[in-house]
């Protein structure tokens, strides 16, 4: 297992390297630059700006500079002289010496902020929303799928699957404003927009204050986001359970005289969760790094917006930063999924 993880980790590095190269090439290949504005900037101003951000250098040099800033840790003396030298990880070693690692660069559109700041401040918010949304999705989706699967072709099955179809078909963009209107404007039970948690967080994302002031902001967006996902989970759980329940080892378990409850819980359910866990990996990575539409509708200050606006603004470092971050989450989530397989199904082993 240890060797497996190490090997996967090395693969991850390679993936990130290739991905960064492709992203870099794409951003530079797309027409239009970060300093093209509706009010055209004079040549000399663009020259000054490009010099400031090293965009006047040849592409290969820009790329190597980026790789160096992101991947190579440095030991430096004193505080960073400018925003451009700040890093995501800054550990004080001794005296005035610091270990700095991962400098994702400045943001061209928010001139007093860096990509590090954006990730530090906006990612935890998206993660909080994502984790709650995914929990809601699992709490609704898995039981609904199990009931529908066990009671196939009964009223429960039809009811559950109708709700699932509804969840898949009604997107957040329709569901969100309705929730805001009903609970935020008409009934005024919940605030229509905003966020209740503020840094510092425990373990990078858990708010210190988990009182109603946090939940009242998170409930609506998490529900809107989670409902669609719960529908996917429910349908998958049902389909997979229906298949597993016909397997030979279930018949064996029943033949041993095990009570039906144990047959379902210990044998059928565990195995039927494998496809569910498979989709949970990418789903987790996508949700906790931010969702554009949900965050927009509910005014959540998360990271989702930056995946979109960075591209329209040609904000190169933000594009690179968000994409690399998403890739890391995706690879890590899939690693956890692979490890979970082995635990769920004794036939799978990584040696």
């Amino acid at each position, binding site marked *: 297992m240890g060797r497996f993880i190490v090997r996967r980790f090395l693969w991850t590095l390679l993936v990130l390297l290739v991905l960064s190269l492709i992203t870099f090439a794409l951003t530079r290949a*797309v*027409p*239009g*630059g970060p*300093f*093209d*504005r*509706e*009010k*055209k*900037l*004079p040549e*000399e*101003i663009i020259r*000054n*700006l490009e*010099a*400031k951000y090293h965009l006047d250098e040849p592409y290969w040099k820009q790329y190597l500079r980026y790789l160096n800033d992101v991947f190579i840790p440095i030991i430096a003396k004193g505080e960073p*002289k*400018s*925003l451009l030298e700040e890093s995501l990880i800054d550990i004080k070693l001794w005296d005035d010496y610091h270990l700095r690692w991962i400098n994702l660069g400045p943001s061209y*559109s*928010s*001139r*007093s*902020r860096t990509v590090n*700041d*954006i990730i530090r*401040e*906006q990612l935890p918010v998206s993660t909080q929303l994502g984790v709650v949304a995914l929990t809601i999705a699992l709490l609704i989706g898995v039981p609904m799928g199990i009931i529908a699967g066990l009671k196939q072709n009964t009223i429960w099955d039809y009811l559950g699957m109708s709700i699932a179809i509804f969840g898949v078909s009604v997107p957040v963009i329709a569901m969100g*404003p309705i929730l*805001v*209107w009903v609970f*935020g*404007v008409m*009934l*005024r*039970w919940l*605030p*229509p*927009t*905003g*966020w209740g948690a*503020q840094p510092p967080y425990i373990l990078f994302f858990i708010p210190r204050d988990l009182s109603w002031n946090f939940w009242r902001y998170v409930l609506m967006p998490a529900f809107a986001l989670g409902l669609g996902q719960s529908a996917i989970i429910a349908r998958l759980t049902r389909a997979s359970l229906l298949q597993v329940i016909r397997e030979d080892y279930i018949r064996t378990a029943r033949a041993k005289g095990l009570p039906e409850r144990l047959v379902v819980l210990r044998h059928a359910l565990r195995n039927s969760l494998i496809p569910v866990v498979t989709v949970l990996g990418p789903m987790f990575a996508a949700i906790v790094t931010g969702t554009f539409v949900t965050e*927009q*509708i*509910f*005014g959540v*200050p*998360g990271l989702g*917006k930056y995946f979109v*606006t960075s591209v*329209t*603004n*040609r904000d190169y470092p933000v594009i690179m930063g968000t994409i690399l971050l998403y890739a890391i989450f995706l690879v890590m989530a899939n690693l956890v999924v692979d490890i979970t397989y082995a635990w769920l199904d004794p036939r799978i082993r990584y040696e």
Partner: protein
Amino acid sequence: MYTKKWSLVAVVAVLAMLVVTSCKPAVQTVVVTVPGEAREIVVTATPPKPTRPNILRVNLGPGDVPTLDPALATDTSSIQIIDEITVGLTRLDEVTLELKPGMAERWEASEDGLTYTFYLRQGIPWVRWNGQAVEQVLDEEGNVRYVTAHDFEYGIKRTCNPDTASDYAYVLAFAVKGCNELLNAEGWAEKTEEEKQALIDGVAAKALDDYTLQVTFTTPAVYNLNIIGMWVAHAMPKWVIEERGDRWTEPGFNQSYGPFTLKEWVHDSYLTIVKNPFWPGFENIPQPAIDEIKFTMLDASAAFAEYEAGNLEVAGVPLADMDRVKADPVLSKELVIGTMACTYYYGFNTSKPPMDNVHLRRALSLAIDRQGLVDNVLKGGQQPAQWFCRPGMAACPTPEKYPDLGVKYDPEKAKAELKAFMDEMGYTDVSQIPEIILMFNTAEGHKRIAEAISQMWKEVLGIQVTVTNQEWKVYLKTIQQDSPHVWRLGWCMDYPDANNWTREVFAIGGHEENATQWRNEEFTKLLEEAALEKDPAKRQDMYAQAEQILVWEDAAIAPIYWYTRVTCTKPYVNRTFSQHGYEAFEKWSLQP
């Protein structure tokens, strides 16, 4: 009987819920007529104590405020905040657009009109939010730091410095002597410290003493006083900028001196400014009556939901809600359509056949039913534009004074111009006209306008244009490098003078020279002279002449509409309505 009873219970329950949950303190007596029953129920709620905090909540629009650094600000959100926490040498009256004293109490000009001496107001301290209250900033010796002429000199020179890489430095570069030489310095990076310092010293902004600033301009233009009041020329705190670098604008570090000061800035979420008690207050920039302003950063629909929930005092109305708001008895009273200093226009590539023929360009411009577009597509009460420069700006022609200037919807005239074009080219049928491409940047609003206008062209002239779109940045590159036959753009004010419009955009060397491919010597010369003309009436006439060349004689563009701002304001807010888009919140107040 049962149903009646139940409906009664339901109505009372809903009502009670509304009373309990509603934040409106005004609810006292509510009269409800129960359907099917011949009596009225009177529900009386005890009036809650008026405990409204003296805090104004306003939406700035989606996305984080990009910066609070006056030298770097380019967008409306940043400039709005900067204008409230700092004040320029001169300051515009936001309602009349008159130039009023700002930090300079008075000024005098030299004989040649090039050099101005500004006399600053004394005793206005730099302040900061210390976590609990607004405090005066002290220098190393423990004395209060007052805003001096040196701070303004530093600010102007910092904006002109290539190391700052300021987007808006070009405005100072053409106005202030020596700024262009610094901003444009060849091989700046390789220069020695002495050479750099010599160029910085060359910028003609000098503090003669603590409260006297002398600025020399490149030309004796009438708009110089406007430009020197712009955010890029505000006083900046050298000691903070040198200590904190790019982070100096963050709360805690940020220092300012205007009627408000920065309190909190939760990026991507909200920003609050508080009343600066050390701002003495002047006739045109009073001490604020409001203690604190919270700016949210919400999408238009989300903000309007917050407004309706009673959590915002001011919010823009999304286009989708426009008809509902106009029909709503409460909201329609809170709705105000104000002006906004922007123009929406279609440009022509005057070198690309068939657009190189002026008659065709005129025909297309005449065939646009601007009022119809406003009524049926835009719905925000926009003003049909007859020319480019937004009326209200100094020296811009106004429709009252020049009712027949420029271009208006006139299908008969349009057909006559089309005929003139076809005769000249020897065409007998409109189908012989080569393909015309109308391009816009991908956005729902632009698409609807383009579709409506191409339909008008088809109906009036019989010309079928090809409508196409590109993503924003790609589009910007396209219109600069090889602009299509017809393209769209907008222009918004930097300073309220016709020079910022007609000349800066369309004269030779202007912003859109590449896109229009139009270079008119007479037009440019007229505008150069107009910049120096002292007599306001004569000056306005000159811009009227220039506009006539731009939109009619040469018809290089088709102006479409002048922007409006559609906002709802709660009835308990006493406010002014800015003509240029930036509000002076120090003049607002909240009823208790």
